[in-house]
């Protein structure tokens, strides 16, 4: 028991970090589902591309004298823009032509995009693991000691950036005109069109925003967990999907909640039980939620969609 309490603060910090990454991935999953009722299986691979864009910028800039803040900011921004554009392109060419096809068709198309992205990276950059040189950007000496726990600089960065992005997203969805249009399209496309909303453009914007968040998640994940490779999107996609379902797929606050829920569940399982549980826990959570509350813990009716 003593051990448990001694470890708890550190586990909370770790849970927050992992949860922040999952939440960012889950958001894009959930937003796309909310607006198109499409499970975008390529979303995890967009996250992977984001990780590689960040890695590329880092590798190119570490040898320069640019300050770390600038390098990190550029990594995140470039990954967000790159992934945002990628998301828009995927929507335009892989999903839009199938908008009125049977629902299985875009699912298969999504799997195709997923394989395509993995293979592009494997063929161009090989199947090797790459490692983020985080220590050169944020020295391990930076951090705050909190009793038995330590909040390292990089974990603080991940948590702060993720919360900032989620706050901005929440503002966009709840307060801006575009956000209102997204919610309108999610509830009733024809009715939204009847208000003058250009539905295709709103769908594009949704893909851009959701994919940009995945891109940011890719960089943050790389910074804090270091290793990246072409197949990492598969696992990330599963976690994002699980988190989205846990919160109630299609619902923005739900995806954030689901991400942190899963992040904490995994961290605690690893920290207090055994590391072998890490990837099992997501499925346990997914199955439990589907059995007990298929609409997600923040049930879809209560909270607004998109």
């Amino acid at each position: 028991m003593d051990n448990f309490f001694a470890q708890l603060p550190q586990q909370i910090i770790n849970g927050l970090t992992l949860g922040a990454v999952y939440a960012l991935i889950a958001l894009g999953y959930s937003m796309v589902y909310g607006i198109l009722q499409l499970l975008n299986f390529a979303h995890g691979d967009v996250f992977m591309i984001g990780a590689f864009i960040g890695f590329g910028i880092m590798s190119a800039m570490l040898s320069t004298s640019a300050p770390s803040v600038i390098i990190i900011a550029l990594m995140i921004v470039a990954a967000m823009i790159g992934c945002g554009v990628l998301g828009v392109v995927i929507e335009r060419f892989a999903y839009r032509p199938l908008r009125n096809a049977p629902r299985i068709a875009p699912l298969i198309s999504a799997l195709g995009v997923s394989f395509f992205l993995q293979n592009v990276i494997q063929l161009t950059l090989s199947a090797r693991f790459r490692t983020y040189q985080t220590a050169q950007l944020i020295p391990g000496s930076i951090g705050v000691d909190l009793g038995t726990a330590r909040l390292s600089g990089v974990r603080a960065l991940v948590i702060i950036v993720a919360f900032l992005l989620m706050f901005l997203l929440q503002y966009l969805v709840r307060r801006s005109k575009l956000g209102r249009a997204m919610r309108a399209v999610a509830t009733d496309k024809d009715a939204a069109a009847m208000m003058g909303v250009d539905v295709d453009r709103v769908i594009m914007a949704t893909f851009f925003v959701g994919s940009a968040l995945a891109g940011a998640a890719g960089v943050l994940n790389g910074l804090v967990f270091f290793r990246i490779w072409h197949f990492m999107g598969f696992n990330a996609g599963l976690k994002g999907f699980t988190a989205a379902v846990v919160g109630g797929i299609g619902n923005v606050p739900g995806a954030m909640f689901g991400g942190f829920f899963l992040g904490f569940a995994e961290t605690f399982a690893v920290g207090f039980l055994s590391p072998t549980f890490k990837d099992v826990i997501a499925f346990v959570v997914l199955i439990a939620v589907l059995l007990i509350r298929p609409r997600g813990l923040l049930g879809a009716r209560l909270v607004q969609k998109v």
Partner: protein
Amino acid sequence: MNGHDKSATPLLRLTDVNTYYGQIHILQDVNLEVYPGELVCLLGGNASGKSTTLKTILGLVTPASGTVEFAGEEVQHRSTSYRIERGMAVVPENRRIFADMSVDENLQMGAYLRNDKAEIEQDRERVLELFPRLRERLNQLGGTLSGGEQQMLAMGRALMSRPRLILMDEPSMGLAPLLVEQNFQIIREINEQGTTIFMVEQNANMALSIADRGYVLQTGRIVLEDVAENLLQNEQLRKAYLGR
């Protein structure tokens, strides 16, 4: 009444419109006109193609042949949002209120294509004066309004775009007779303040009591067209639609 100037350009004109759903021919050579300032109704029984006519006007379905002109411009190949931008607004069948949005947000959706904040605020004020019930419920979710309140919200939302033409699909549907009467008075008021209205109705008596002119649609064809007084007297229409 029926005082439109026939030499003026119609605000809305459908010429030889044919609309299909897949293989099924719904609208057959439909011709109709709505002049600026008019209140025109389109009457017809269930499945006669009334809603399809509105969807064709709005661009939610594309006609296989024929033209839809709005304010002198052919729009049959334009997107719905383009037509809304040009000045159409709609009170759709079943109201189509955004259930997860507040009453206020629903009204703001009506003004989606506008950027003139101060004037949007004026129009919102005007709508809330027209429908005081909505003011009491500004923060209530649209989906929790009663049917009558949703109808008011749908009308208010349409007004928020400051439209030249409002298209209405069965504004009397599902409302108690007293409320129907109230709503039709408001529709007439809106028309008298200068907004042109094209209304689809099954309640022929009620619609003709406020309309200038009317068309009668039967299995996708216009079978009658006249000023409202004459239609009210028309034996054929009486038997078919007025039920007496």
